C-alpha cells in the first residue's frame, strides 16, 4: 500500500462510531491506503497503548477519536514528533496538543440551534425539561446540553421576554438506546408533568420514545442535541420526534481522513485552522428530506 493509516476509536459500542469507522475506512481504501482500526473499549489507557502500538508499527496517518480530552495529549504529541500526521476527529482534545487539526461538528452550535427551535416550537408553554446525558465527564455532552439551554434561554427571551424553563431532572443513558429507555422510564415516573425531553444524542432519545409510549404519555416533545441518526430522521418525518442537531459521522470521518492524507502528501494549505467544524444545522420536519438517506449506515 501507498500509505499506512491508523484509526483509534474511544469505543465501538455506538452506531455513530460504527458509521465513522466505515467512513474513514472507505476513504482510506479509495486512496489505496492500508488501515488499522483499534477499539479502546472506553478505556483511555488502552487507547494510549493502541496509539503507541500503531506508531511502532509505522503508520503515517493517525486518526484519533479521543476517549479523554487531556489524557491523550502526551501520546499524540509523541506520535507527531515521530513524524506521524495526526488528525483528531469527533471528540475534543485539548487544543494545546500538537496535531494537524481537529475535525468535528459544533456541539455548541448544534445545541444552540436545537434550543432555539424548541423555544419557537413551545412558545407560550412553560418548559419542563428532562435531560438525557451520555456519560459523566464527557466534554462534548456538556457542550451539547449547555448549547440547548443557551438556545432555549435566548429564544424565550427574544420571543417572550422572559425565561420559563425548568430542568426537572437528568438521567444517564451511556449514549445507548437501552440506557436512554431505562433513564427515561425512571425520570418520567418521578416527573410525569414533563413536556420536553432533550437527549445528548439520538440513540438515547429513541429509547426514551419507547418509555413515553409505554407510559401512555402524550404532549412530550422529543428532541436531541446531536447526530441525525436514520431512525430519528424517520420519526421526524412522521412527526413523532421534534428535532435533532446535524452531526454527520460520514462527513466528519471523511473530512478528517482527507486532511490527514493531504498532510501526508504535503498538499496541505498553510493556513489550515487548528479547529475544523463541520456545518451545524437543526434537522426538523421542515428540512428533514435534505438529510434523510434511507441507505445511510447511520
Amino acid at each position, binding site marked *: 500500500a501507498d500509505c499506512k493509516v491508523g484509526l483509534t476509536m474511544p469505543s*465501538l*459500542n*455506538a*452506531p455513530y*462510531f*460504527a*458509521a465513522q*469507522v*466505515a467512513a474513514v475506512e472507505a476513504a482510506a481504501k479509495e486512496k489505496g491506503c492500508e488501515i488499522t482500526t483499534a477499539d479502546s473499549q472506553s478505556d483511555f489507557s488502552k487507547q494510549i497503548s493502541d496509539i503507541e502500538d500503531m506508531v511502532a508499527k509505522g503508520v503515517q496517518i493517525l486518526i484519533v477519536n479521543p476517549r479523554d480530552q487531556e489524557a491523550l495529549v502526551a501520546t499524540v504529541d509523541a506520535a507527531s514528533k515521530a513524524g506521524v500526521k495526526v488528525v483528531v476527529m469527533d471528540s475534543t482534545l485539548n487544543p494545546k496538543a500538537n496535531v494537524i487539526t481537529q475535525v468535528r461538528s459544533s456541539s455548541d452550535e448544534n445545541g444552540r440551534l436545537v434550543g432555539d427551535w424548541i423555544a419557537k416550537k413551545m412558545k407560550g408553554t412553560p418548559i419542563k425539561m428532562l435531560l438525557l*446525558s451520555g456519560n*459523566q465527564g464527557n466534554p462534548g455532552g456538556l457542550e451539547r446540553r449547555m448549547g440547548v439551554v443557551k438556545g432555549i434561554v435566548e429564544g424565550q427571551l427574544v420571543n417572550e421576554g422572559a425565561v420559563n424553563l425548568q430542568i426537572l*431532572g*437528568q*438521567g*444517564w443513558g*451511556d449514549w*445507548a*438506546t*437501552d440506557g436512554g*429507555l*431505562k*433513564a427515561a*422510564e*425512571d*425520570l418520567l*415516573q*418521578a416527573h410525569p408533568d414533563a413536556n420536553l425531553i432533550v437527549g445528548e444524542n439520538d*440513540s438515547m432519545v*429513541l*429509547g426514551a420514545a*419507547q418509555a413515553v*409510549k*409505554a*407510559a401512555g404519555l402524550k404532549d412530550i416533545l422529543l428532541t436531541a442535541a446531536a447526530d441525525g441518526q436514520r*431512525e430519528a430522521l424517520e420519526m421526524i418525518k412522521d412527526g413523532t420526534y421534534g428535532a435533532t442537531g446535524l452531526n454527520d459521522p460520514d462527513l466528519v470521518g471523511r473530512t478528517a481522513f482527507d486532511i490527514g492524507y493531504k498532510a501526508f502528501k504535503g498538499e496541505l494549505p498553510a493556513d489550515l485552522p487548528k479547529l475544523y467544524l463541520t456545518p451545524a444545522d437543526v434537522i426538523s420536519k421542515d428540512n428533514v428530506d435534505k438529510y434523510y438517506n434511507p441507505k445511510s*449506515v*447511520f
Partner: protein
Amino acid sequence: MSASGTLPPSASRNSRLVEIVRNYGTVGIFLVLMVVASFWSDAFLTERNLMNVARQVASGHGIMAVGMLFVVLTRGIDLSVGSVAAVGAVLGAYLIATMGFSLPVTILLVLLSGVVSGTVTGFFVAYMKLPSFVISLAMMAIARGVSLILSAGRPITIGPSGSALVDFGSGFFLGVPQPVVLMLIIFAIGGAVLTFTSFGRIVTAIGSNEEAVRLSGVPVRRYILGVYVISGVLASVAGIVAAARTGIGTPQVGVGAELNVIAAVVIGGASLMGGRGGMFNTLLGALILGIITNIMNLAGVPGYHQNVYLGLIIILAMLIQFVAARGRQ
C-alpha cells in the same frame, strides 16, 4: 433416647420454607429497601413504577441471574453473559429484519447461539479443567466481537415483520409486563430444577464437594457443561427480551452486565465458593439491584453522586444481611 444422638427424627415443620428462603438476610434487605424507597420518593410505590422496575430487571440482569446461579453453584463464574445477550439481540433482529425469517425459527436459532457459546465455555471448563473466569472472559470478548461484526456496529431495527416480538416487549399480561411474566416463569422453572430434580441437587453438590460427587459415581463433567449451556441459553433469551423491549437489536446490549448479574446472585446470598444459593433469593437480589438505581433516579440523586450512593446502599444491604444472619442463630 439412644446414645448416638439427640435429634428429633422428623424434619422440622418449616424446613420446606427454610429451603426456599435459604437466606433470611436477602428478604430483610428487600423489605428494608422497599420501606426506605417508599419514604424517599412518593413515586416509588406506584403500580406503574414497580412495573417499570420489574421490567427493567427482566430485560436487564434478571433472566441472566438464573443461569448465573447455576454456574456459581458449581463454583464457576460466567463473564460472557452480557456479550452472549448482545449476540442474541443482534442475531434476532438480523434474522427477522434482514433475512426475513419467521419469529419461531428466529427464536430457535438465537437460543442455539446461546447453546453454542455455553457449550464452548463449558467444554473448556468441564473437560479441560481451565478456570472459568478466564475462559468466560475470552468468550465475552469473542461474543462481543461477533455481535459487532454481525451488526456492523449499528443497531438493527426489528421492523414490522417482528412486530409480535416488539409487542411482547412492551405488552402486558393481566397487568404485568410480559417480559416480567417471562422472567418469573424462568425463575420458577429454575427454582424447581434446582430443588426438585437430580440435576439441581447434583449441581449444588458439585459446588459443595466436587470430589465427593465424582466418587459417588456421577459424571461430574457433564453437569458442569450443563450449567454453562443453561447460562448461555438464558443469556440469549435476555438478549431477545432486550431487543423486544427497544425494538432494535444492538451490539451495545449487556455491556458491563456481568458484574451486575453476579452481584445479583451474591446479594441473593449465593457463595462464589459454590454449593450455596437459592433461586428465590436470587430473584430478590436481582430486584434489589434494580430498585437501588431506580430509587436514586426517582429521588433525583445527581449523577456523580449516584455512584457513591450505590456503593453505600450495597454495603448497607450487606450489613443487613450480616445482622439477619447473626440474628438467626
